[in-house]
């Protein structure tokens, strides 16, 4: 599959919500989150973009983190959805659906020749 590249401003808008959604599938760590986003067709997300998003989600209390020792490696930081994270994800995902439907509705309306 060709590498997807989406406009940066779109990614900034939706990435935090998508990361929250990936974490909702169960405890996971940075590299696996990036791989999941790439599989979903959202393109390559660099560590420099991903970790500040996770930091912000943790500061908001929507995810929590803990370190697990790796096999001889430097270990992995696992992120888990918190009880406050679940309703926040539901609410924001619903909002996002409404938003994209409205945008799609506008974009698909035939242009009126003047």
């Amino acid at each position: 599959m060709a590498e997807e590249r989406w406009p940066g401003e779109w990614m900034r808008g939706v990435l935090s919500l998508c990361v929250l959604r990936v974490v909702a599938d169960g405890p996971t760590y940075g590299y696996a989150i990036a791989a999941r986003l790439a599989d979903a067709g959202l393109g390559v997300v660099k560590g420099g973009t991903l970790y500040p998003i996770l930091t912000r989600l943790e500061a908001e209390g929507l995810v929590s983190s803990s370190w697990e020792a790796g096999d001889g490696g430097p270990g992995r930081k696992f992120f888990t959805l918190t009880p406050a994270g679940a309703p926040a994800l539901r609410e924001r995902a619903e909002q996002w659906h409404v938003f994209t439907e409205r945008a799609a509705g506008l974009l698909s309306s035939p242009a009126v020749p003047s």
Partner: protein
Amino acid sequence: MASTRKSTAQAWSDDLLLALRLRDVPGARIGEVLAEVQSHVAETGEDPRQAFGEADGYADRVAEALGVPTSGGGPGRRLVRSLSGGDLVGSAVIGLAAYLLADGLWSLGAGETALLGLPAWSAVLIALLVLGVAVTRIVTAARSGRADDAVIDPRTGADMVTFPRWAVALLVAVPLLSLAAMAVGGALTR
């Protein structure tokens, strides 16, 4: 010594550490960020600069994500602003005392008895006393500062910024050797 030759990954990590310190990010949080970088690049095999960009820019993003208020200006300005009047006075006192001590040792070496109207030995004693107090204050402050806000590795609880023994030896040996050289230099003028 092997540890003095640093890899580019280690150099990038050190730059990030300094950049986060200058942005007043808490030490424990810096440890988290450094561990995240280590873990990520070990997993992907990327170079830290490739995955995280320039250390300074990444520190900006981390500080923003944490809501740490970023004071404007470059690293130089931030460093200057973090200095207090006490630091400047302390530096001046240490400089003058070190000069007096060096001059006193030279005079003693040269066999002169008086320095600035004082007996040379008493000038040396005064300078030693002032320097001793000043150095003790700095060491005490540095130790308590490190304990308060150390960069702790979240995986092991260890301090990630160790001060190697050779650095301590260098810091102690260079001034002592310089002062000894003053006495020797004075003696050579006899």
